[in-house]
């Protein structure tokens, strides 16, 4: 319990965000991430092969390049595989939470009161997998906005409806 001098900030009864049950995003999103990753690996390998045959760079330089790229790409696949289970969103009475990331884990909390507007969008790739992105805008800087990627249609609509319902209630 935080306290100073005579005053006490009574925080025992406060809702605790770290105990919220998080809902995962759609598993299909992991397939999307893996597919895009595989795509780039193929492109990279073909570039390296072409480089070897057309330009024939000196061996130490070439092997250094390969090892650096391998290192970077291994980090990326670790981030994808280990980070995906950590992607969760939570809906509470007065705010919405979203967390993601393996090497850098970021949890963001946006109170409904601060939501300016909500947007559901879909890129071409997402369309193929029937996934959506939910974007929640605040009046703060854009890095404080929520962008929940890889939701299926049901969840996206459900969250948006929930936010609009609660925002309406707040306004009254």
């Amino acid at each position: 319990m935080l306290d100073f001098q005579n005053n006490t900030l009574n925080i025992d009864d406060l809702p605790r965000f770290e105990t919220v049950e998080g809902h995962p995003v759609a598993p299909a999103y992991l397939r999307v991430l893996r597919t895009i990753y595989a795509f780039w690996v193929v492109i990279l390998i073909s570039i390296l092969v072409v480089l070897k045959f057309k330009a024939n760079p000196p061996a130490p330089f070439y092997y250094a390049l390969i090892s650096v790229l391998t290192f970077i790409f291994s980090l990326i696949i670790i981030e994808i595989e280990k980070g995906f289970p950590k992607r969760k969103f939570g809906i509470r009475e007065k705010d919405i939470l979203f967390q993601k990331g393996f090497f850098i884990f970021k949890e963001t909390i946006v109170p409904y009161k601060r939501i300016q507007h909500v947007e559901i969008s879909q890129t071409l790739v997402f369309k193929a997998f029937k996934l959506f992105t939910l974007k929640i805008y605040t009046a703060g800087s854009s890095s404080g906005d929520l962008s929940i990627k890889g939701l299926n249609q049901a969840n996206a609509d459900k969250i948006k409806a929930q936010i609009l319902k609660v925002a309406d209630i707040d306004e009254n």
Partner: protein
Amino acid sequence: MKTDFSIPRRQNFRGILVVFLMDLFKRIKQNVYVFLPLLSSEIRENYLDIVLIVLVLLLLLQLLYSYKSYLNFKFHVHEERFFLRQGVLNFTDTDIPFDRIQNININQNLIQQLLNVVGLEIETAGQKSAEIKIKALSREDALELKEILLKNRVEKQINSQIEEQDENESSKTETNKKLSILFNLDFFQLLKVGISSNYIKGLGLVLFFVSTIFQYLQEFFSNFYEINFENTYLSQSYETFAFVVGFTIFLLAATFIVTIGRTVFQYYDLKVTKVDKDYEVEYGLLKRINQVIKKSKVQVFEVEENPIKNLFKIKNVFISQASSQELQNKKKIGVVGISDENLNILFKSLFDLSYPQQFINIQSSMRLMFRLMIKYFVLCILIGLGTFLWIGLSYSLIFPLLLLGVFTFISYKAIQKSHIGVNENLIEIHSGAIHTNKKYIATHKVQSIAIKRNWFQQQNNHADLIIYTASGFEHINYLNYDEVVEVVNYLNFKVESSEMGWI
């Protein structure tokens, strides 16, 4: 003579010149490197006439463009909305209802001062914010327009208050403004502010300037003094040493002058006036800024101190208000060279709380050293390489090591001072190493909160805290995770249970 703003009108006639000159200077500033080849005498001899013809043509084109832009810029006021049509080839129609207007600023840059006109800026809030800039109006017209745009809002507020209270009052059509000057910065105080400010930016500017013209300086000196710079470094070490010392003194003196000069130009004749419940701040020599500080719009209140400032008994205050873009230092309203007494008055009227306040503090951990030192280490290596290529082995070892020592000390001091404080109403974010920076945010003005943990922090129970407001975001790094959780839960509760709005 009252101007009728309900008919579409153009800017003041001198606006043609204002628009032309302002556009011209903007283009020159953006493309100044185009002029650098002219410093070479060879180019001047062979191509001068072509260059001149091209320049004259460009000037004529710019004049035509600016003239058309002036002709097409028409604005008027109708039914509590502000209308503007502008453009040269494409047209843009802007339509702003009075109640979306957050702020009206009247500025005067050097060109406007010479031509005796002012510029009027209309600021709105919201995602797609419109910022209207009228570049040339007479001061009387500008003040009148400002009153029309803001008056209706004040009237509406008064009317709705009267309705709520259900009273019959004879309504006042114009509120008499209570004006009182809070303080005025005299030149001597301004110099004190300049002497006690941060020299790093000045040093950066001097270094940048010197490095860009260094090539031309070399050419210049080699023609006049027949010094061959290539041989000087290796053979004549004494001359080199004297040269380095002289050069360093020159850099330091130039930095000193540039820093003080910039401060004087930026904050010349700073005046803070209390107008009813708001504050109007004006300052500037070449570019006169005039901005209003509204209690409801204020998001972050920043107090800057350092040992020299404490000696002079002054502080700097920067106020950030709600904006739709990220705030750079320029958009913050600067109230520099303020005394403690005036600081308390300003703080109290913006927050309804006395200054200073008591807080519960959470301190950054010394583990932050790792993160800071990695950056400085890389920087020192780069500087070492640079000096090695330029001067020679002996200097390239001493200089970076010295720098590393300095950076270590600065990092240690910075971490010691880095903490976040929380109480019933305010958040205090403390940062800085030699310069101390305290940022105050009302708890109910927080927009969203984030907790960031890299892989190491996830193992050692620490986290970075990020607080988002309508004027940007603030980082507090490497705090204890359990304490961060408490603070986050508390701030969330404060935001969600508060009746007060953030603007």
